[in-house]
């Protein structure tokens, strides 16, 4: 904690205050080591209101979409009778189901590959003492914050050029679902690395030493102690990557070829051709799927671990 004198303006006098430290003894309230929730009456009145409004703001649009996906009428502002006809239309539309499966496939492959590479990278960054550590770290961070437009364009051009180059040798290489996967993995690695690295760095090194001390080899210590403790972070980042890939638009937009396209791109075309409630249905469906996957994984996982510990991890 930094301890510099705080300058307080009281009226026109400038008073040098002693450093504000945290020990409970200085405060007027009775505190123990644990946090005590503040009493209601010192809460500014506007806070709950703003929060409630924001929650409404966040949920209104998706609720509206869901609501209208069950609309029997075509229009967007008149609600007819509840009907499943748009979902029916969806399921029987081969282009949509094709895109759906493609998106799921892409997301799965992306999840697996980027989780592996990202975890390895996390270990390398935390454990290795190498002059490549810092540059790789910076590279990864740059990747993380680059707007998708920029990386999308870059991938588009490199794939096009590579395609032209390989054509000379008779190899067909063009934009396709493969290039979409490659693009997705590229932006996903950084997310996995950051999450896993955070957890890895927080692990007590002595725990691994204890494993060695008790007879586990280096590989054994990794297998029996480090990885089990790291598992939540790896799974969480894997899920995150799955959702990001499934929902991804911009990178897919630049790296997709002709033929089957990922679902978000399909939605994009649909929006451009004209607005129909079918889009509401697709959107609702996608949302339900991703939420279901996340909830299912959470449920699986809290049964194995202490629930409170994992929820605490979410807040980190």
């Amino acid at each position: 904690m930094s301890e510099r004198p705080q300058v307080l303006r009281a009226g026109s006098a400038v008073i040098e205050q002693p450093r504000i430290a945290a020990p409970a003894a200085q405060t007027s309230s009775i505190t123990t080591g644990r946090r005590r929730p503040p009493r209601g009456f010192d809460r500014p009145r506007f806070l709950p209101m703003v929060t409630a409004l924001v929650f409404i703001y966040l949920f209104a649009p998706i609720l509206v979409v869901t609501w209208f996906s069950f609309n029997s009428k075509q229009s967007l502002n008149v609600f007819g009778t509840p009907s499943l006809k748009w979902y029916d239309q969806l399921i029987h539309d081969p282009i949509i189901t094709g895109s759906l499966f493609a998106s799921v496939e892409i997301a799965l492959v992306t999840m697996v590959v980027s989780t592996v590479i990202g975890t390895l990278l996390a270990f390398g960054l935390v454990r290795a003492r190498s002059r490549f550590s810092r540059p790789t770290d910076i590279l990864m961070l740059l990747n993380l914050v680059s707007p998708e437009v920029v990386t999308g364009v870059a991938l588009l051009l490199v794939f096009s050029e590579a395609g032209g180059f390989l054509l000379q040798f008779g190899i067909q290489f063009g934009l396709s679902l493969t290039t979409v996967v490659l693009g997705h993995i590229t932006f996903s690695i950084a997310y996995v690395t950051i999450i896993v690295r955070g957890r890895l760095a927080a692990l007590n090194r002595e725990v691994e030493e204890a494993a060695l001390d008790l007879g586990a080899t280096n590989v054994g210590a990794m297998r029996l102690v480090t990885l089990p403790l790291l598992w939540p972070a790896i799974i969480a980042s894997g899920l995150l990557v799955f959702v990001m890939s499934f929902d991804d638009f911009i990178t897919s937009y630049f790296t997709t070829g002709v033929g089957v396209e990922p679902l978000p791109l399909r939605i994009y075309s649909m929006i451009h051709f004209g607005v129909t409630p079918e889009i509401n249905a697709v959107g609702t469906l996608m949302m339900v799927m991703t939420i279901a996957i996340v909830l299912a994984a959470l449920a699986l996982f809290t049964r194995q671990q202490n629930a409170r510990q994992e929820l605490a991890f979410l807040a980190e």
Partner: protein
Amino acid sequence: MTTAESSTVRLEGVVKRFNTTTAVDNLNLEIGKGEFFSMLGPSGCGKTTTLRIIAGFEQPDEGSVFLEGRSVENTPPYRRNVNTVFQSYALFEHLNVWDNVAFGLRRKKVPEMEIRKRVGDMLELVRLKQKATSKPRQLSGGQQQRVALGRALVNLPAVLLLDEPLGALDLQLRKQMQIELKEIQRTVGITFIYVTHDQEEALTMSDRIAVMNEGLLQQCGSPEEIYERPANAFVAGFIGISNLLSGEVQDHGVRLKTGQVIPATIDAGIAAGENVFVCVRPEKLRLGPKVDGQVSVEGTVVETVYLGTATQYMVELAPGLRLVAIENNVHTATSDRRLARGSKVSIGWLPEHGRVLRS
């Protein structure tokens, strides 16, 4: 020289450097079987580094380490017959108490039947039988500490290394654990190497103590040796309260700042005129008129502290020259019997109780 090794742990000329600091400087130690051996010193003195070298987590830059007579230069921690109790306990959060304790035995592929017996017995020994299925985070600090101990001990290593294991416990619990640890060590008969910065802990628990400072071994000996016959001013100052009177060697005695020459035993190596300290322990001082055969000095009482069992007096002989004396409250149980501030007093001690140490 190679002799039949009777020592369990032997360090020869061990040096360990980190960047520009020398954490351990030319350390030579020999620790025998079944000993309760403590390494004592302030933070940064090198005691923990030495422990880690014995465990195998650090490699010495120079020197050799022998465990049970065998050189362990190239032996990784998992193949050394040594186990560690870490300062942070380092329990496996994802395993329960039973699996934590059984971990080492399972690594050695001990048959499950035997594991069941040994882990069960160990949990009895550390009084955690009820908590076998609990996870570490559900336990108190003291309980976690006992899991760490049990986990290490159940493997019956040749040496058990303990890195300030009681540091995180409150005073009451610490005292209790000290007694328990000593009893366990006596029962199991394993060599304990115990690192601490608490000199009282070291004195009460150890068979021998190695006092270290800034990477160098200051003195190695029994608690009595360390306390009564400190080798240098650092050891004298670090253990207990010591009175260090500075002066010069003169006429088989030491000339104090006051001009008085007090008789003291001068070791052969110390020449006349050298600056030395006379070190006297507070309980060896007697307040009262001079008795024949005793060394006696005069001073004024500047502070009287009632300690319950004893009274502590701070007496000033001359500006900057003070003595702390402790007298049991046998005749001085009531305040009117105790010497008041400002009273003039004579303090005496037997010449052999005044050790002369180089400055």
